[in-house]
């Protein structure tokens, strides 16, 4: 290979990376711009609104804690979706696996009452992963053996999971009282809040640690992201996953079992979604009830899309959605902008990420202009 060709190929690499990172950024920027246009047209002050939004999501340690709180399940669900997407599988039913994970944690936590935290916490997280994986296993087998599309089957399984949890919290697992919910998890089974790990003196000295409701689930999520990244990049399991995603026929010819890889991919995707349910139950609500998830499994789809299925990029993508959600209250309070505007901005982000072609088109156009100007 000549030096010139090598040079060109590194150039192309850089261009590819720039495009990979650039498009999501451009999408978010466009969404924010159009969002402010909408606010302006509707008679609200976009600058005040975004200032309040920022204040409410990053302005104080407590606000940042809320952003982390809301990002935690989104990171895990997004990871699950991204892992599936890498194998060209659309696990649209992550919400159902999330419910089963939450159920496993909420139930086992009560069963394990009296166990020390170092026994309870790992067992609960593990149980949630297994429950999520088990819930994905049947659609996975159906996909692998008879080709039943996972979009249909996992979605159907979401309904079953939701109604099953609903039945349990109204019936057999209901704690005494008016409200359909399980009993409170013992403290050993709860993921502690970050600020509760430090002494008052430390908090006094380092006020940025007073992150309110943020809990150790964020650590679980970040560790999970690093592990998924490592698995995809450096292990045979991850290689097979990607190979099947790129081209199943080529993978099969190369000696990879597409069926088995499909099953593994959906189960791993399910286990990550299950983990998302567990951190919500163990870190936020400390009990199970039928509305404990606000559609995190579905928002996870958008997170994975925005992250372009890169496990590490899932973290900032989830933080964006978490921040939009955390700042919405302050935006209503300070700028009188209705919360629905936030939903519009979120929808626009998804729209532009999905309609990447449009953004790429403009980027290309710009590049063409730039080169023609130079030339």
């Amino acid at each position, binding site marked *: 290979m000549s030096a010139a060709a090598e040079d060109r190929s590194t150039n192309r690499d850089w261009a590819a990376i720039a495009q990979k990172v650039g498009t999501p950024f451009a999408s978010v920027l466009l969404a924010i711009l159009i969002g402010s246009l909408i606010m302006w047209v*509707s008679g609200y002050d976009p600058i005040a609104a975004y200032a309040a939004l920022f204040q409410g999501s990053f302005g104080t340690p407590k606000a940042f804690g809320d952003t982390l709180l809301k990002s935690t399940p989104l990171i895990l669900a997004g990871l699950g979706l991204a892992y599936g997407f890498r194998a060209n599988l659309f696990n649209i039913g992550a919400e159902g696996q999330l419910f089963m994970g939450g159920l496993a944690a909420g139930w086992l936590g009560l069963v394990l009452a009296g166990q020390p935290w170092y026994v309870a916490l790992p067992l609960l997280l593990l149980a949630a992963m297994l429950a999520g994986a088990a819930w994905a296993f049947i659609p996975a087998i159906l996909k692998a053996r008879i080709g039943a599309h996972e979009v249909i089957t996992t979605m159907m399984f979401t309904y079953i999971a939701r109604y099953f949890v609903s039945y349990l919290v109204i019936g057999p697992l209901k704690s005494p009282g008016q409200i359909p919910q399980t009993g409170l998890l013992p403290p050993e089974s709860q993921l502690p809040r970050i600020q509760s790990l430090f002494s008052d003196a430390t908090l006094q000295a380092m006020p940025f640690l007073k992150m309110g409701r943020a809990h150790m689930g964020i650590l679980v999520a970040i560790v999970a992201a690093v592990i998924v990244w490592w698995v995809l990049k450096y292990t045979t399991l991850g290689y097979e996953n990607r190979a099947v995603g790129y081209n199943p026929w080529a993978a099969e010819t190369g000696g990879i079992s597409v069926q088995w890889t499909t099953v593994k991919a959906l189960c791993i995707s399910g286990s990550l979604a299950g983990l998302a349910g567990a951190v919500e139950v163990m870190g936020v609500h400390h009990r199970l009830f039928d509305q404990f998830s606000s559609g995190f499994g579905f928002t996870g789809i958008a997170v994975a899309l925005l992250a372009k299925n890169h496990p590490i990029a899932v973290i900032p993508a989830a933080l964006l959605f978490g921040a939009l*959600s955390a700042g919405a209250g302050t935006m209503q309070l300070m700028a009188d902008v209705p919360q*629905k505007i936030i939903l519009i901005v979120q929808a626009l982000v998804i729209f532009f990420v999905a309609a990447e072609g449009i953004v790429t088109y403009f980027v290309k156009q710009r590049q063409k202009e730039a080169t023609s100007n130079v030339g």
Partner: protein
Amino acid sequence: MNSKTIRVLSVLLALVLLVAFVPGCAKKTDTGTGTSDGTTPPKSTVKAAMVTDVGGLGDKSFNDGAYSGLQRAEKELGVEIKVLESKEITDYESNIDQLATAGFSPIFAVGFLMTDTVSKMATAFPDTQFGGVDEFFDPVPANVVGLNFKEEEGSYLAGVVAGLATKDSFDSKLNSDNVIGFVGGMDIPLIQKFEAGFIAGAKSVNPDVKVISLYAGNFTDQAKGKELGYSLIEQKADVIYAAAGQVGLGTVEACKDKGALFIGVDVDQYETVANSGDVMLTSMIKRVDNAVFETIKAVVDGSFPGGTIKVFGLAEEGVGLAPYHDFESKVPQAIKDAVEKARTDIIAGTITVPTAP
């Protein structure tokens, strides 16, 4: 190709703007502070606020009801008002926290899912007063009032209407089988109160009536509501009362499809469910607006009933029946008189309505 892409893009953008513009404008008019009718409201230093549940404003139910109570207080009592809508359950705590920090009191939280959060925030902000709509506390914190409703009393009136209507023939959808139906959301004590009152009311005027009760298991599945409606009509029910949130909307569809009358719940569903006039006999309404307004008034007067559960029944105008609307001229005077008699008897205490079936 290029110009086509641009055209598609501009159409899409125009659509986005249009969709955003319409509700945006509508919202603007009703969040506007100050009264539009020119009268100067009395001034008050009270700052009242509410946190919606995930249904948000525009749910045509409790959130909107509580909000109209706030608006009335703004107008009549001159208090400052603020609404924070919640998108997720985790928003409840941060929204209440922010309102309390900003000095709002009383703060109303709508829906029983916020019970835990209200208890927690009541401890964190002991000087702030809270009102929990549909929330039951045991024990009630000193700075909290639980706003509950005697749904069984309103349901009793609905039962009287249904029990007499099924024997009557003022509408072609009524049959002679003497069967009526009840559709519940979740099979929990809160909803069982509706069922109990409805059955008692029906039996009080029609001892032989058969009441079939079905539960959907949730408050959202409209398809399930339709299915349950079909099932009830199949079993000859000709008047169906649904206390099931969104599920009831499916039941309305079933009634329109197969020909049965429907009794709505929570709000006057004649107003909120489009094209339901030919089946909507009446609705059992919960006056969340009255409960919220009365509570704000108590705060202004300095008589906030903290530490108690306030129960709003027929006597307090906390529950009642909506107008018959399209059936106004069809419903026989005898039924209207029976409802009125039941109402006065309940208020007088001569009838005690059961709360569990």
